[in-house]
């Protein structure tokens, strides 16, 4: 059964594994120089690296591969696993050998899961190691040029740590189940892609931030920490200020919200028009002397404060483990459904 599992998986597994292996080689070759460069000159490290086109490309290629891998695994390893047998009716050949369907599925699923976990695990581990110096620099607030995003932020979180492995396994389970239910390879592949992407979006937008208690900082709004404000209306007739954003002393964090509270601690949906002065004059106009300072004073006098909610960079692994565990439980549940489903009719 192990032989058959490998015989049938290798056609899809080898190209993917080869592509990943190629990336791994590039990472292994360039990785040590990153470590050295980061040790030599921490301050100029990212600036220097930004000029290295190959490494910048590699950095983004790694992220893209990590996000693409679950899709590829789900659509090309998972979906065809049973669907192709059902389509070509070969399930009737293999299920009439002296191996029960349940056992057959167990071997196929576990075999594919082992390969998936190995490939995704190696890839993610290598990426996490390779990008380690870059991410430490970003976490230290040195982010610049193409290297701005902290690894705990949504854009990178799914391409680092254990989460890529969990997504790949979940995608595999989605694929196999879709194949079993839909019984058509191409349709099952399409549905798998939709399901995997939908799960990723759902987790990022609604689930991940809930997996750990975020930190909250409440701070007065000052000239130093103000990074921007959003104005409605045009420059001449400002109706009101929609939003203020401040920066905290925190670096490498995942900011969840940046809200303005009034003196009673209530969230302000909009701010009065005069707050626009805090942002300085519109482009091309001369500043009125003292207008900005007066604005910040008035904000402080009227008791406005800014509340920032975020996951600090130190929460990275907590979030990684919890999200991975959640996805794996989901994958196991889907796997269980596959076993339940395969016991039905096999026309």
């Amino acid at each position, binding site marked *: 059964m192990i032989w058959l599992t490998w015989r049938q998986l290798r056609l899809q597994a080898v190209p993917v594994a080869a592509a990943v292996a190629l990336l791994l080689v590039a990472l292994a070759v360039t990785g040590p120089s990153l470590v050295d460069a980061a040790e030599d000159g921490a301050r100029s490290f990212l600036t220097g690296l930004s000029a290295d086109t190959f490494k910048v490309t590699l950095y983004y290629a790694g992220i893209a591969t990590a996000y693409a891998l679950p899709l590829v695994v789900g659509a090309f390893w998972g979906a065809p696993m049973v669907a192709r047998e059902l389509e070509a009716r070969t399930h009737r*050949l293999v*299920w*009439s050998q*002296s191996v*029960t369907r349940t056992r057959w599925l167990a071997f196929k699923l576990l075999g594919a899961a082992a390969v998936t976990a190995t490939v995704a695990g190696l890839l993610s581990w290598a990426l996490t190691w390779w990008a380690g110096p870059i991410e430490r620099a970003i976490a230290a607030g040195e982010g610049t040029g193409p290297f701005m995003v902290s690894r705990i932020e949504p854009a990178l979180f799914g391409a680092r740590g254990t989460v890529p492995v969990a997504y790949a396994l979940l995608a595999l389970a989605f694929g196999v189940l879709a194949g079993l239910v839909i019984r058509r390879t191409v349709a099952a592949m399409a549905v798998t892609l939709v399901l995997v992407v939908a799960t990723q979006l759902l987790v990022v937008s609604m689930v991940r931030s809930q997996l750990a208690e975020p930190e909250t900082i409440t701070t007065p709004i000052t000239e130093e920490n103000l990074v921007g404000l959003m104005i409605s209306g045009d420059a001449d007739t400002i109706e009101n200020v929609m939003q203020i954003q401040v920066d905290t002393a925190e670096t490498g964090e995942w900011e969840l919200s940046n809200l303005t509270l009034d003196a009673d601690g209530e969230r302000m949906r909009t701010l009065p028009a005069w707050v626009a002065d805090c942002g300085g004059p519109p482009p091309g106009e001369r500043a009125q002397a003292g207008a900005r300072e007066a604005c910040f004073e008035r904000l402080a006098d009227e008791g406005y404060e800014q509340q920032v909610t975020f996951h600090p960079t130190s929460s990275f692994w907590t979030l990684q483990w919890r999200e991975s565990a959640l996805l794996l439980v989901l994958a196991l549940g889907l796997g269980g459904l596959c076993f339940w489903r395969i016991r039905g*009719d096999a*026309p």
Partner: protein
Amino acid sequence: MTTALRTHELGKRYGRSRHWALKDCTLDLPTGRVVGLVGPNGAGKSTLLGLAAGMLVPTAGRIDVLGEAPSSGSEHLARVGFVSQDAPTYRGMSVADHLRLGAHLNPRWDDALVRERIDRLGIDPSRRTGSLSGGQRAQIALTMAIGKRPELLILDEPVAALDPLARREFMQDLMEAVAEQDLTVVLSSHLVSDLERACDYLVVLVDSQVRVAGDLEELLASHRRMTGARRPSDVGPAGHHVVTASHTDRQSTFVVRTGGPLVDPSWDATPLGLEDLVLAYLRGDASYERPRPTVEVVR
């Protein structure tokens, strides 16, 4: 006497369909036989065989294969060989790969037997089954089913897609396997001619229901076509079970299952061939008589 396949009021509906693909099927097929399952397309042959092979789950009734529920574990699977309609194989895999698959997945795999058969078929083991002819693929599927050394071999329309020569070769191989091994075979066909020589037990399935089942010789011996002067009613010769009746203005013709000696001299009785016998049941709407438990095993 042991039973190869026993069903009791077996029924099958697919999904939420209201149509019964197989209905109220009660059969008792003895071991050591070659059982022919005949019926028009869509009569429920594949459904019955699919249920027997454990590929389908019954909607109603019971089915036992070699005394156990179908595919109730790997040991039971090893005792039953199944070749599905169109003899599916992995088209991208070589013949040798298929044999390897068989050897890996079947504890009782008879490698010598299989190699010898492939040799004799003259098929290059390194060829992909996708490049073989339909007949050769059917032979590979049969070889795999025989190679696992089953006690019962279930073949669903094994020769339907084959040309006459391939048909003949397939049946030759099958009969040789029956002679060599202690093998019970249940095979279906919508053509009686495929089964005529091979089978010694017959089941006729029409409209999802069993019409007649029994030892072939016995069936042939007990059925007669009776012709005589036009009778006023559809009441056939006394004491005989009428299968079909047809009338012209002068003449009445009945196909009957005889209940005793044919003594009435006003009837001209002639025996029926298998083809005519089956046709009579396909046409007639006679109710099916439950199998009587008096079947002698030839082996």
